[in-house]
């Protein structure tokens, strides 16, 4: 996964002189998650810019640079740190185009590790892509595998709007095939990660592994699961979800973010509005517990959704 993101960044730096990267310790240190390791010597300090610890200011610096014709990629050490720069992301990056009547574009990508599961406790384990997905004027994506990471990063950097590129912190070491031939993945497109007939399961990012585990458990009960990877939280691909629901007539939506206010609340409400006639049972929604993320391993696992919890709830509710 790390290598796929790295490849996407290197490609952009190689092909577009207007691309530059800014963030804390991305240069000499090589990045908190080592994604930009080696970039400083390859591309130089003008394009690989180590910033002070000033999230609001280096996010806003990206906005200004983008408004003046560059294509900055901003790296945050954690999506929880986006809070320090939230004013810049929401009030500035997302709103400037609209407030100026379409005069000013902000082609900028903000990359940020997201999610729990690595024992970083309450301040470093949150999933604020769910908050940012609500804001019009920005796109928001979150890949679950190396192939999608590269394809989505290519389109994100080429896009002429601000894009939040959330990278599940759990998945940096994930292995997976990446095609040699060039490809892109459009923003706003979900994918069918596994075809099935009886139940549609939807999640994104680190949730995908849990869905596949759930599917294996349910297969033993002769239940066939179709698995949807949302990939894009803004906009959401309701066509793909809807087609799946039309086939299976059952939907289970899983967030690894807190359940309350999670993106699946939005997914579920929209499916209920638009595809209610196709549903043969209540929609099941599962998310992380609505608690601050604990440090302790067992407590963290308790708050996190698991395939056991999900399959148990499915068997109880839908079957």
């Amino acid at each position, binding site marked *: 996964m790390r290598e796929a993101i790295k490849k996407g960044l290197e490609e952009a730096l190689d092909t577009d002189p207007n691309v530059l990267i800014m963030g804390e310790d991305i240069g000499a240190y090589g990045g908190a998650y080592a994604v930009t390791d080696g970039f400083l010597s390859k591309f130089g300090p003008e394009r690989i810019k180590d910033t002070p610890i000033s999230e609001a200011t280096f996010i*806003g610096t990206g906005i200004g640079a*983008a408004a*003046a014709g560059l294509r900055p990629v901003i790296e945050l050490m954690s999506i929880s740190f986006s809070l320090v720069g939230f004013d810049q992301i929401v009030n500035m990056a997302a709103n400037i185009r609209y407030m100026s009547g379409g005069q*000013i574009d902000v082609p900028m990508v903000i990359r940020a590790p997201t999610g729990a599961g690595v024992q970083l406790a309450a301040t470093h384990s949150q999933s604020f892509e769910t908050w940012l997905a609500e804001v019009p004027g920005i796109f928001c994506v979150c890949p679950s595998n190396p192939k999608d990471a590269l394809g989505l990063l290519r389109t994100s950097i080429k896009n002429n*709007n601000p894009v939040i590129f959330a990278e599940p912190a759990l998945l940096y070491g994930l292995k997976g095939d990446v095609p040699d031939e060039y490809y892109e993945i459009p923003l706003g497109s979900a994918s069918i990660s596994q075809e099935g007939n009886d139940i549609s399961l939807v999640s994104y990012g680190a949730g995908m592994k849990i869905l596949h585990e759930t599917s294996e458990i349910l297969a033993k009960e002769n239940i066939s699961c179709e698995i949807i990877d949302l990939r894009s939280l803004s906009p959401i691909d309701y066509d793909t979800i809807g087609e799946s629901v039309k086939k299976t007539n059952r939907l289970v939506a899983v967030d690894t973010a807190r359940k309350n206010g999670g993106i699946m609340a939005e997914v579920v409400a929209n499916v209920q509005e638009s595809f209610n006639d196709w549903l043969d049972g209540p929609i099941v929604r599962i998310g992380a517990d609505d608690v601050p993320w604990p440090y302790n391993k067992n407590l963290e696992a308790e708050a996190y959704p698991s395939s056991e919890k999900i399959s148990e709830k499915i068997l109880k509710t839908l079957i």
Partner: protein
Amino acid sequence: MATLKEEKNKRVKKTDKEKNQMLELFRQMYLIRQFELACGENYTKGNIRGFLHLYIGQEATAVGSISCLEEEDYIITHYRDHGHAIARGLDVNRSMAELFGKKTGLSKGKGGSMHLFDSAKKFMGGHAIVGGQFPVATGLALACQYKKTGGLVVCYFGDGSTNQGTYHETLNLASVWNLPILFILENNKYGMGSAIDRVRAGGEDFYTGADTYDIPAAQVNGMDVLAVKEATEIAVKKVRQTGGPFYLECKTFRFVGHSLADGQKYRKSDEITEWEKQDPLVKFPEWIKSAGIATDKDLEKIKSEVNKTVEKSVEFAETSEEPSKSELDDDIYKK
């Protein structure tokens, strides 16, 4: 820094070009004043809604400083932005139409008073979160440096914004990366209703603080358009020479409330009366006449033309179309 008085004493004979420049400074200041008065009137009538922050009293700061800029230079400012917009030469009709929320406005009626933009003139907003413009200014300056355009960024801000974290972060980054930004503080003594001494440690002068960030700085009388112009010329030259930042503090004063909703309970009328003695719309024309640059008749002619311009802008705004409902979701994303 020269003051009006010193200039007057010098009695240097002005060339025609210099005389015209002086008259242009007057015309712009008078245009801003009349524009603002018309805004106030139309706010009372209900034609302009939302929050309306007038620039009355501070005209010399915007006009004096912007007169020193080139086309490739960016301007970014705070929500009290009409003065900067007019001094930069933004279309008066379209500015007024924006305040009226009309389709013909600079932002098609989507931004309003606090968010004036004209990208063609590199006027990058009106920003209404106090201190929000600092980081964006840094990015504009980074682009100037990266693309080697030779341009610089002027970032206007008020004394109230200096307690935001972005102020300190941006001064630091602009200095560390040696970015071509001219920070212009419009110190009008009040952040909304809060006098400086109630909210700031370190006294009433701000420019000395720039030293902490190794940024050269100066202070100037912001009520004196020639002093502001001269100080800005020096500052701009310095930024272009070094490629790095400069900090200019303009001591100024707004004669009216923070917004039209402000009863000004937090200050005494004596203070306003005292500052009105420095009104640039009184002092500067007096100097123009005493320096033999123009007569009352010449100035009246300029005023009469400006009055017509402002009247026409109100008429333009009044008779312009409202945006159609179908425009609601235009301009959110670039295709």
